[in-house]
C-alpha cells in the first residue's frame, strides 16, 4: 500500500521546527512510502480504504514540530497521519463492503480490547481513556497517531468495527469527511455548559471554528453568537453558518465589548482587555494569542472552551485567576449526556458521531472542502492546508486512492 509516513527523528524535528515544515519547507518528518498494510490487530478489526482523508490542524502541528511533546508520548511512531476519514470497509474476503463509513478514530479501551475497561471508559467517557499509552494496542490517542492502525493518509488502514459509522447515501464524500471535526465541534458545544441566552464567542474560523458556529446554531440558539475570523471568506462563511456578527482579530476586542456591553480597560504594559464580556468563549485557534484573547474577553465566572489543540504556550493566567474563569478542554468526542445549551440531560445518552452525522445531513458542509489531492502531491497539499485561510480554502483533503495504477 501507499502511505504518508510520519517518522520523527531528532535532527528532522529540529529542521522542521526551524524551517516550518508545513510552510513549503522540506517536510523532513513526512515521506511517501510503499509499505505493507498494517496487520489486523485481532477480532473485530477490518481493513478500510479511505476515499477522502482530511488534513487537520493537529496534523500540521505535528509536521512542523510544534505539537506538544505531551502528545508525542501518547503516539507511537512511525505512524500514518489522518484521522478525518471517509472510506470503504473491506469484507474478510477482501471484497468491498456495501456503503461507505466514517471512522471514529478514538482508540479507547473498547477498541483496544482492554478488559475491564479503564475507569473513564467504564464511566462512558472514552475520550478520556487511560489506556491510550499502549495497553492492548500500541500507544495512540487516535487512528492516525498509532503505528498499529495506520491512518487516513494511506490507501489502506485497519479499524475496529465499533469505530465505523455508516454514511447515509445523501451525504457525499466531502460532506462525510467533515463528520469527524464536526463531532469535535458538537462535543465542545455540548460540553461547554453554554445556556440558551448566553453571549457566545467563537475565536477562529478555520474548520473547527466554522463547525463550532454551525453546531451552536444547530444545537440551540445562544442569545448572541459572535465569531472572529481573519479572512474574508471565513467571515462570509461564519455569517452563513449562523454567526450574528463577525469581527476580525483587529476589531475583536471592541466587537465583543459592543456585543456584551462590557467595559474596555487599557492599562500600561498590558494588552487591552474587557471587564465583562462573553459568557462562553470557544477558542478554536489553539494558539497562545487565541488563548490570551479568550481570557481577555470572557466575563468573570465565564467559560473558556479549548477546542483548538494548544501546544506549549506562554500566557498570563492572572485574568483566569482574578475572573474565576472556567477553562475547559474539549477533546474529541464520546458519549453525550448533556442536552444542547442547558436543555437538561440527553435521554438516552448518544454517541457524538451519531449527532454529528445527523447534523452533517442537515448542514451539507461539503462546500468547505476543496478539490482533494492525491498522496503524491502531499507537499502541495500540506502547504495549502498550512495557509488555507490566506488561500481562501477551509478544509484540504487527500484522495488516497487516486493516482495509483489499478
Amino acid at each position, binding site marked *: 500500500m501507499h502511505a504518508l509516513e510520519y517518522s520523527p527523528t531528532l535532527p528532522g524535528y529540529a529542521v522542521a521546527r526551524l524551517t516550518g515544515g508545513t510552510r513549503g519547507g522540506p517536510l523532513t518528518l513526512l515521506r511517501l512510502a510503499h509499505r505493507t498494510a498494517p496487520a489486523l490487530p485481532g477480532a473485530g478489526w477490518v481493513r478500510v480504504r479511505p476515499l477522502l482523508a482530511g488534513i487537520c490542524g493537529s496534523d500540521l502541528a505535528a509536521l512542523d514540530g510544534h505539537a506538544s511533546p505531551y502528545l508525542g508520548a501518547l503516539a507511537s511512531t512511525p505512524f500514518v497521519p489522518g484521522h478525518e476519514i471517509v472510506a470503504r470497509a473491506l469484507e474478510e474476503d477482501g471484497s468491498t463492503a456495501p456503503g461507505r463509513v466514517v471512522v471514529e478514530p478514538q482508540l479507547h479501551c473498547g477498541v483496544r480490547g482492554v478488559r475491564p475497561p479503564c475507569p473513564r471508559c467504564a464511566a462512558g467517557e472514552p475520550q478520556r481513556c487511560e489506556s491510550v499509552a499502549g495497553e492492548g494496542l500500541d500507544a495512540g490517542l487516535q487512528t492516525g497517531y498509532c503505528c498499529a492502525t495506520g491512518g487516513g493518509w494511506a490507501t489502506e488502514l485497519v479499524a475496529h468495527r465499533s469505530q465505523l459509522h455508516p454514511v447515509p447515501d445523501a451525504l457525499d464524500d466531502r460532506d462525510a469527511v467533515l463528520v469527524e471535526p464536526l463531532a469535535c465541534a458538537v462535543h465542545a458545544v455540548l460540553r461547554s455548559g453554554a445556556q440558551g441566552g448566553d453571549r457566545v464567542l467563537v475565536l477562529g474560523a478555520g474548520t473547527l471554528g466554522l463547525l463550532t458556529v454551525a453546531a451552536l446554531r444547530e444545537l440551540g440558539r445562544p442569545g448572541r453568537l459572535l465569531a472572529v475570523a481573519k479572512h474574508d471568506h471565513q467571515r462570509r462563511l461564519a455569517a452563513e453558518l449562523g454567526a450574528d*456578527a463577525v469581527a476580525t482579530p483587529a*476589531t475583536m476586542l*471592541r*466587537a465583543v*465589548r*459592543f456585543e456584551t*456591553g462590557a*467595559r*474596555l480597560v487599557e492599562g500600561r504594559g498590558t494588552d487591552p482587555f474587557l471587564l465583562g464580556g462573553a459568557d462562553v468563549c470557544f477558542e478554536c485557534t489553539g494558539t497562545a494569542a487565541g488563548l490570551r484573547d479568550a481570557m481577555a474577553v470572557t466575563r468573570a465566572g465565564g467559560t473558556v472552551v479549548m477546542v483548538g489543540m494548544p501546544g506549549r504556550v506562554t500566557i498570563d493566567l492572572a485574568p483566569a485567576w482574578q475572573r474565576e474563569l472556567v477553562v475547559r478542554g474539549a477533546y474529541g468526542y464520546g458519549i453525550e449526556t448533556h442536552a444542547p445549551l442547558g436543555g437538561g440531560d440527553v435521554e438516552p445518552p448518544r454517541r457524538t458521531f451519531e449527532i454529528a452525522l445527523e447534523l452533517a445531513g442537515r448542514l451539507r458542509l461539503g462546500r468547505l472542502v476543496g478539490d482533494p489531492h492525491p498522496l503524491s502531491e502531499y507537499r502541495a497539499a500540506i502547504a495549502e492546508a498550512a495557509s488555507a485561510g490566506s488561500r481562501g480554502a477551509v478544509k484540504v483533503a487527500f484522495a488516497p486512492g487516486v493516482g495509483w495504477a489499478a
Partner: protein
Amino acid sequence: MGSVMAPRPGAVVEVTRQTPPLMVPNGDGYVLQRLPTGARVVYAPDPLPGLRDPDGAIRRALLNPLDSEPLPALLRAGMRLTIAIDDISLPLPPMRWPDVRQRLVEAVLDLAAAAGVEDVELIVATSLHRRMTAAEVLECVGRRVFDAFWPDRLYNFDAEDPEALVELGTTDQGEVVEISRRAAESDLLVYVNINLVAMDGGHKSVSVGLAGYRSLRHHHNVHTLRHTRSLMDPPHSALHASCDRMGRLIEKQVRVFKIETTLNTDTFPSTVGFLNRREADWSWRDRAAAYGFSRSMAALPHARARDLFHRTRSPYALTGVFAGATEPVHARTLESIYRQHAVPVKGQSDVLTAGVPYVGPYNVNSIMNPILVFCMGLGYFFNMYRGMPLVRKGGVLILTHPLREEFHPVHHPSYIDFYDQVLASTRDPKRIEEEFEERFATDSWYRQLYRRSHAYHGVHPFYMWYWGAHALEHLGNVIVVGGQRHVAERLGFLAASTLDDALEMASQTVGRDPSVTHLHTPPMLVADVEPGAYDTGVP
C-alpha cells in the same frame, strides 16, 4: 483717517484657462487643485470689519437689551445665577486670545458682583459633546474667571447625571424637555453664545446645549434631519423648529437672558494669510508661500501636521453682540451672520466639490475620523445653502480628504464601534437609527467614558450620520479624492486618486461635461441658491 474700502462681497467666479489652481483643504494639509474650465467657484465675502470697541459693545448690549430689562435690573443679591457658555466646538478654529466668551463672562460677572450676587455657577454647555479639559476651559474663559470658579463653580455639563437634570414638560409635539437642573432652578440663566454659522444659537443653545439624550432624540433623528433644508436656514429647518418649541417651553419656566455674538470670516492668521484670499488675488509672494506651505505640510508626518494645525488660533473679530430675549436677539444674529456669509448663486450644478479641512466642530484638538469627514461633507458642506442645495438632485459630491481609518481613542470611542460594527452592517440611516441607536445611547461603558473621561457620548456618531441624511437621499454619488479606498467603501463612497479621475467617475452618474461648483471654504459662507439654470455669474 484714510478712506476705508467696503469689504468685497462673496462671489461666484468662473474657472478659465487663466485661473490658477485652487488651494483646497485636504485634512491635515492643503492641495493645489485645478478645476475644469467652465466650473464655478463660490468664494466667501471678505471679512467684515470688527467692532472697534468690543468691550464697549458688549456693555451696551447688556445695558440695552432687546425685549428685556437691562441685565443689571435682573441681578440682585441672594439670587441664583447660572451662566452657560458654548463649548469648544465653536468657533473653528479656536479664536485668538481673548476669546469672546471671556469678554462676555467677565462683563456679566462684573455686573453680578456689583449687584451682590454670590450664588453663581458657570456651565460649559457641552450637551453630548466631550467634556472640555481644564486647559480648554481656561482658554475660553480666561485666567481670572477660571481661577475663581474652576472646578466647583465652573464645570462641564453632564447629560448623564440624573440628579443634574430636570424634566420641564412636553411640547405640543410630544417632545420631552429635560435640561440642566441648575439652569432650570436658577433665578436667571445667562447663555453666552458664539454664532459661527446660522445653525448655531437661538433656542438651540439652551434646548440642546444643556440637554441630554432624552430631549435630543426628538430632533437629532433621521426624520427631522431629512426635513431640515437646510441646517443653515433655520426657518426651513425641522431641527430648529423642534428646538424652538422646546425653547419656548423652557422659557415659560426659566428666565433666560441670551447673549449672542457674531464673528467675521478672518479665519487664518497672517502667516498663512493667503488662505483668506482668493487665488486670483495672490501676489507672487502668496503663491510661493502657498506652494511651500502645501508641500511642507505634505512632507510632515500627518500626526505632526495635525498638531501644527490644531495650534492655529484665528484672528476673528467680533461683528455683532446682541443681548436680551432669545428670539429677537437671534433674529439680529442671523442678519449679522448672513451679512457676512451670504453669497448669491444662480442655479444648481451637477457636481459640487469641496475640500474637508483638518478641523470640524467635533474634533478640536482631536482627529477628523471618517465619520466626521462624512458629517463635514454631507452634513455641513452640503447644507451650506439657503433655497436649494448647490448640487442638483441625483448629482455628485466630490470631497477631497485623505480619509484615513484613524480615530481618537479617548474622544471618539463609540465612533470606532459605529464604524466597525454599524457601518459593516448597514449605511441606511433609518435602519441604523432603529437597530443600533438605543444600544449605543445607553451603553454603560460609553456613559462612563462620557462622564469621567473626555469621550463624546455613545450616541454622537449616530447624529453625525443623521446630519448627512438629507444629502444621502439627495445625492447620486459621493467621491473622495485622495481617500483610502476601503474607508470610502465603508462609508458608501467611491475613492479617486485625482480630481480629474473623480470627475470621470462622476460622469457615470451625471453624464459627460457636468456643471461643477466648488465651495471654497473655509472661510465660511452660505450660498443663497436661486432657482434657474446653472450660471457661472459671468455676463
